[in-house]
């Protein structure tokens, strides 16, 4: 029988949040002479904490939902059959593991291990070619930016390469502003060297001399791993390129919590130390960017694609995906799915395959999927046969965006979802241009009114008209895309809007102003846990009836009720003391 060569515990942010810290400690106590390593995330976040037992015959056994106890650790060390984790066959078929090959499989900050697994082979090949040849190879691959806009990476690099100046800047956009997307975090935490290798190849191809990584401050572990990786590269001399007089400057800058800073001109302003407001383009950053220097910006996942692309060759890369969308894309699946986490699929798989077959959502339980975050839109379930790529999603009024994919179950309200996104963009609007500043504010106010049950039918037309103007008139991508969540939900879920404004009904019972809370007396055992928990004293201790004039709809009683007798009902179906007195 094979024996265990090494134990690997996934301690990326998702693993830690699920309790991997205690698992790691248990193995450190119990593993004896078997080495225990920390690795990143393999994407199956729903199964965290995950432990991999690496065997001396080259195979591996995975365990999921591991408990942080000595017994659990000892059982795994004896290769128990219990709790083994096998990636479902169908998921294996649908996925195409290209960029994430090493994520969660190696120690993120161990340079030797990265190299032993093919790390820096891409850079090696790149510097055996001329910079122009590398740009051509990236062009030939058809790789388009993974940060949202989908601009061809090879083309962007050729603009920077054409600048004949000694000092040029290359920025890695690690702001990951889409709330609900986490693939960039995972890549930085799990394979920081791969991202940095991609940047070094970019520097070789374009002549860039300074490399900046602009990472959001909410990702402390990503920042830590990148810092260690940069220091390791410096030690090993991997920050040098042939023919360059000095090592490259590689600097991490922490963002400070502003969504708009993901936009490239805003990011440059932020890197210069000021307020991160965008500006009109042209001039494009490749003409005048950071402190006036030619600058190009690429997303984390775009850079992470570069090393395997260089190893496998542009032609191989171009053989994956669709006509206009080459390669793979990592999607961050979350929301109402069984298996939230990361999945890497070739472009061209259908939404149904991702949501149902990979995500494990049951057909019939899902209303829509939200792609592209605050800039994107909601796609209804009857369009799930759409093949995912940049253009197909755009045609549906959404965008692929950075790859956040939030699955929305039947029990959620689409108007409230639109309101949520507009509250986000309204808050994050930098205020520089009127269309965005005032437009998003008015749209948000209107949606607030509708969910409060105070909307009128003309509000829907108003949203559509104003949305169209904001789209056309705003200065930067934030404003230009901000109406999308409202417009796409009106397009596909007009019924829900109409029910809110005409009948003041929220079918999903999510909008607090349009629901009552009611106890089902037939099942109630009068334990009065609800009475004690209610923060506003709305439940009568004798009759156990909720007075909806007092109730704040906080759901506390619903959550604590051991018999599940309390629920939200449509407004008017519950008790109101004001009505009773009349």
């Amino acid at each position, binding site marked *: 029988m094979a024996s265990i060569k090494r134990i690997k515990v996934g301690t990326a942010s998702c693993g830690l949040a699920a309790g991997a810290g205690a698992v790691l400690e248990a193995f450190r106590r119990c593993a004896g002479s078997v080495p225990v390593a920390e690795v990143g995330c393999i994407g199956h*976040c729903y199964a965290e904490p995950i432990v991999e037992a690496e065997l001396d015959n080259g195979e591996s056994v995975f365990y999921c939902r591991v408990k942080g106890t000595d017994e659990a650790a000892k059982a795994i060390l004896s290769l128990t059959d219990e709790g083994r984790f096998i990636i479902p066959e169908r998921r294996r078929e649908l996925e195409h593991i290209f960029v994430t090959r090493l994520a969660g499989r190696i120690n993120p900050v161990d340079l030797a291990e990265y190299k032993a697994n093919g790390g820096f082979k891409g850079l090696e090949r790149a510097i055996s070619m001329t910079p122009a040849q590398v740009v051509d190879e990236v062009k030939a691959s058809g790789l388009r930016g993974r940060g949202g806009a989908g601009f061809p990476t090879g083309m962007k690099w050729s603009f920077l390469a054409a600048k004949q100046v000694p000092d040029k800047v290359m920025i890695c956009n690690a702001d990951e502003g889409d709330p609900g997307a986490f693939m960039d975090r995972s890549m930085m935490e799990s394979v920081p060297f791969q991202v940095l290798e991609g940047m070094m190849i970019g520097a070789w191809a374009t002549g860039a001399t300074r490399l900046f990584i602009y990472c959001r401050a909410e990702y402390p572990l990503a920042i830590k791993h990148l810092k260690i990786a940069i220091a390791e590269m410096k030690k090993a001399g991997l920050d040098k390129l042939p023919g360059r007089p000095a090592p490259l400057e590689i600097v991490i800058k922490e963002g400070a919590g502003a969504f708009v800073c993901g936009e490239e001109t805003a990011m440059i302003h932020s890197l210069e130390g000021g307020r991160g407001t965008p500006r009109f383009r042209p001039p494009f950053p490749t003409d005048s960017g950071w402190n006036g220097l030619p600058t190009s910006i690429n997303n984390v996942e775009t850079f992470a694609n570069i090393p395997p692309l260089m190893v496998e060759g542009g032609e191989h890369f171009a053989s994956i995906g669709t006509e206009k969308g080459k390669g793979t894309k990592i999607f961050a699946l979350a929301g109402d799915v069984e298996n939230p986490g990361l999945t890497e699929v070739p472009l061209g798989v259908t939404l149904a395959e991702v949501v149902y077959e990979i995500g494990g959502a049951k057909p019939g339980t899902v209303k829509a999927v939200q792609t592209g975050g605050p800039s994107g839109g909601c796609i209804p379930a009857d369009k799930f046969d759409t093949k995912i790529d940049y253009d197909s999603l755009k045609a549906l009024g959404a965008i692929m965006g950075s790859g956040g994919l939030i699955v929305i179950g039947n029990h959620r309200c689409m108007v409230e979802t639109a309101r949520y996104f507009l509250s986000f963009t309204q808050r994050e609007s930098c205020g520089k241009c009127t269309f965005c500043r005032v437009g998003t504010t008015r749209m948000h106010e209107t949606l607030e009114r509708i969910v409060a049950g105070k909307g009128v039918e003309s509000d829907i037309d108003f949203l559509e008209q104003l949305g169209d103007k904001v789209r056309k008139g705003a200065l930067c991508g934030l404003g230009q895309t901000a109406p999308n969540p409202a417009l796409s939900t009106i397009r596909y879920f007009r019924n829900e809007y109409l029910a809110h404004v005409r009948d003041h009904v929220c079918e999903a019972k999510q909008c607090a102003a349009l629901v009552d809370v009611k106890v089902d007396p037939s099942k109630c055992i009068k334990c009065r846990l609800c009475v004690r928990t209610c923060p506003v004293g709305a439940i009568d201790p004798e009759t156990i009836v909720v007075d909806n004039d007092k109730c704040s709809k906080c759901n506390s009683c619903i959550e604590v009720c051991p018999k599940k007798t309390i629920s939200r009902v449509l407004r008017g179906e519950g008790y109101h003391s004001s009505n009773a007195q009349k």
Partner: protein
Amino acid sequence: MSGAFSYLPEAGSDKGSLIKGLQLVQSREGYVSDDAVRAVSAHFGVPEAEVEGVLTFYAQFKRTKPGKYQISICDGTACHIKGSTQIAAWLAAELGIGNGQTTEDGLFSIETVACLGCCSLAPCMAVNGKVHAKLDRKSLTRILNEYKKMN
């Protein structure tokens, strides 16, 4: 002032490092006080109004002293869909404070953030950077009690 913020040079002195300087202050002091604004202004040679401008632009910066346990409640898309509004309401009810406030005993403060990157385990919150996932009414109370007990 001189002694209090003497670590500022660690952030550099060029204007491009202004944000870094403010982040350094916040990581040391927990927030950016009026004194800190003056010190930063002098150190980077940038008018105080401009420092204020940068501070108010970025959500990360706090102008009031946060609690010993800083709770960042996530209201990103995944967490919102999974009920973060309710989590925030319960938190506010349990602690008697709202977003951006600190409890009287100085133990807890609450801020709302957009996505902690643990969307697959939504809804989440972080307490001093440690992420607590898959929150519900019970786990929230338990977590708060654990922190209260430590004092």
